[in-house]
């Protein structure tokens, strides 16, 4: 946990909690549009080429997601527009049971929330604008096949959140390290008589490991 002064923490207590939500979303790696081919029989470790492909997908997706987050968070946008963005953001996740774990600066206790609930709260935030700067991504080399046929890997991210407000909350900035499960879901694509297998990258549970003052 980063080093905050107590007064700084009290001032940012509410804004921090809310900002974590923003940041978490920006970690999502989308990409129905970027399906990656993988071998059918038990991929255990991805090649460098495949990893590079997924990393590229991740970067593109994060950019897309940042746009969703900014739409959801911007006070100027209509409720309909925000709801559409939430729907698109939710589609990036493997299921509606996906959760986010959030650490609190006030205690060692962590909180786990469903992604849908957090997205819904995101639109109620009072920020005028949100800027998310993505610093680093580490994609683990292992993807392990689960009993459902999906492949599970993980990524670690470092990202800076900046929320701008013109009310008493003031501006808020933090840097957060978090881990996310990446799920490769197999799709059977039919092309005439032939069938090809492709894997689509979806997002799983998210854990925040460390948050410091940006």
């Amino acid at each position: 946990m980063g080093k905050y002064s107590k007064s700084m923490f009290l001032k940012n207590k509410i804004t921090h909690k809310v900002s974590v939500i923003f940041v978490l979303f920006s970690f999502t790696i989308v990409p129905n549009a970027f399906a990656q081919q993988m071998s059918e029989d038990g991929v255990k470790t991805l090649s460098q080429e495949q990893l590079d492909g997924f990393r590229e997908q991740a970067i593109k997706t994060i950019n897309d997601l940042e746009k969703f987050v900014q739409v959801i968070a911007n006070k100027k946008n209509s409720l309909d527009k925000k709801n559409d963005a939430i729907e698109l953001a939710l589609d990036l996740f493997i299921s509606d049971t996906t959760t986010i774990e959030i650490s609190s600066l006030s205690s060692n206790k962590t909180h786990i929330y469903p992604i849908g609930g957090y997205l819904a709260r995101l639109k109620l935030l009072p920020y005028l604008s949100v800027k998310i700067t993505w610093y680093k991504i580490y994609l683990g080399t292992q993807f392990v096949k689960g009993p459902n046929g999906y492949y599970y890997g993980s990524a670690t991210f470092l990202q800076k959140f900046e929320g701008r407000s013109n009310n008493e909350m003031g501006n808020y900035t933090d840097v957060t390290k978090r881990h996310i499960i990446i799920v490769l879901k197999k799709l059977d694509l039919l092309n005439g008589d032939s069938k090809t297998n492709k894997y689509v990258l979806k997002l799983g549970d998210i854990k925040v490991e460390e948050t410091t003052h940006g």
Partner: protein
Amino acid sequence: MVKHLFLVFVAFFIFIDLGKGQITFGMDSIMLQRFDFEDKQIAEFFDRFNYKEPVKFANNLKSTRARNIIALINLKDTGLSHSPETLNFLNLVSNDSNEVHLGFYDENWYAISHCSFSYLNKNCLIDIILKPEAGLDSSYRWVIFDVKSDIFPAPTKANRNITFINPMDHEVGFSELSKALIKRNSIFQYTSDSYRADYLSAFLIMVKSGILKFNQINFVDFQFLQVKGWEFTVKNFNRSDYNSGWLISSIKKMTETEKHDYIKNHFMNNL
């Protein structure tokens, strides 16, 4: 002695560079600098241990497998980093001819999830031991292997000649069974000599029935027993230091027989 000094030498390079970062940059910059060096995931721990991912050392120190593995040790624990056992372990695993590699698909490694529960309106700690289990189709999943907690004490078999159900008690409808169940405290003493407590089943039933309410997972660490002749643990050191993340926190010599007994005694309640 030479190797001992080498270990300290590497540690010096690791720590001195972070010191510079702390003076020059803010916290976010330190996180940024640390990100490449720290061991962020268990998958990364495997890759670095196997020298599949060479660590980028400070001050252009050349990466070798031995240095990679030194960087995976909690160097702030001088008892560990100065231990002859650590150096012997390092000699073994960093020598490529010994072909010591780690991987997710290995047998004999465990995750210990240190959890907080509420039991009878009081907070209690329970360690849930998990291990990867393979399916028939080469798929894997983590399974709950066992639980450890003070709420599951080892049953005492003392005073079995004092607390028992007398051999003719069936003639009176097992009146002493009623007494034993009401008294509760000595209930384990009424079981067969062959009885072994299965705390995992008890835990599962208590969770399912709601008697035991889950609060949170406090932290997770890992125990590796797959290196022949050795056992070591890996914990997450989340600190402002290049020597951080998933690091080896203890190393012990352990024969294969001792490992068998260890698993039986510590993870399986002598079942």
